[in-house]
């Protein structure tokens, strides 16, 4: 399904992930608070977090912005039906556009869903987003058999990684915020 895991988390890592996934404690010694929650020492928590940073299990540590609240309200999922044999040349071209933050191929679900190329376009207002969608269309040119633009109407949920609920091995993180 994806990249080979370079750091399979053990039970303590999982407890640390569960205890931090909704937020680091906003207190002077956050790692000591986590250590208390998961039943280990502050230095062990710091060592585990450093190891997760080193191996990429934690991509970064810090403020996770809420783009909606920060003015990036318009996000458009643009979807395109292009011939599979063109994906090799069109995918990188679309992915390289300044206007596009993510570009993927995904399976079609005919007859309801015929689109195989997804490009995410963001912007502060609709005009900006529409101009950027135009760039994607121009890049794909005549290869497009059908397309659609799915604007976000509402953000209904946004959390980070969540460990399954009801897993008694893990202390339950703080309640949901959204």
């Amino acid at each position, binding site marked *: 399904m994806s990249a080979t895991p370079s750091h399979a988390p053990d039970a303590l890592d999982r407890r640390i992930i569960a205890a931090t996934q909704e937020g680091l404690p906003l207190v002077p010694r956050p790692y000591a608070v986590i250590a208390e929650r998961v039943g280990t020492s502050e230095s062990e928590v710091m060592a585990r977090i450093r190891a997760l940073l080193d191996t990429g299990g*934690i991509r970064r540590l810090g403020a996770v912005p809420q783009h909606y609240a920060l003015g990036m309200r318009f996000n458009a999922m643009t979807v395109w039906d292009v011939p599979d044999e063109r994906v090799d040349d069109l995918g990188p071209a679309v992915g390289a556009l300044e206007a596009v933050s993510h570009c993927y191929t995904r399976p079609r679900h005919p007859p309801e869903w015929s689109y195989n190329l997804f490009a995410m376009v963001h912007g502060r207002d609709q005009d900006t987003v529409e101009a950027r969608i135009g760039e994607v269309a121009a890049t794909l040119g005549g290869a497009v058999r059908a397309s659609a633009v799915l604007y976000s109407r509402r953000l*209904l949920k946004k959390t980070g990684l969540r460990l399954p609920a009801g897993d008694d091995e893990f202390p339950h993180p703080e309640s949901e915020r959204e």
Partner: protein
Amino acid sequence: MSTVPSTAHSDGLDATDRRIINGLQGGFPVCERPYAKAAADLGLTEDELLERLQQLVAAGYLSRFAPLFDVERLGGAVMLAAMAVPPQRLETVIAQVNAHPEVAHNYERDHGFNLWFVISVLDAERIEAVAAAIEAETGLTVYRMPKEREFYLRLRVEA
């Protein structure tokens, strides 16, 4: 790296808030007093930074102050999924979908396929169980949209 627009917006953020949001998206220290260290780099005191962060999270400018995990690197998996929900059932189905802790993001979108969410799990084989559970609860198809190929990936918020 994301940059909060510095131009005036009705977003209620002052210059210090912007400095915190833009400066602290990564690289938070791993040491005994990390907020004190990060605050010093930003020209703030530990108390000031903690208070600002509490406010930014409470007001929703930050979804959280936390590690950003790479689920796939951790041996887990993420999958995009879509549903075509009859409009009169939408709120009920949203609640059913969101009730699953494995559902990380969920958007209503402007299309017949009107619900788009990401299932994120540490144990890759659970993806299918979550999708199947949602189908059983709602009686609706969950269209699996796993990424097959990825072309470039970056997070950009205009400066």
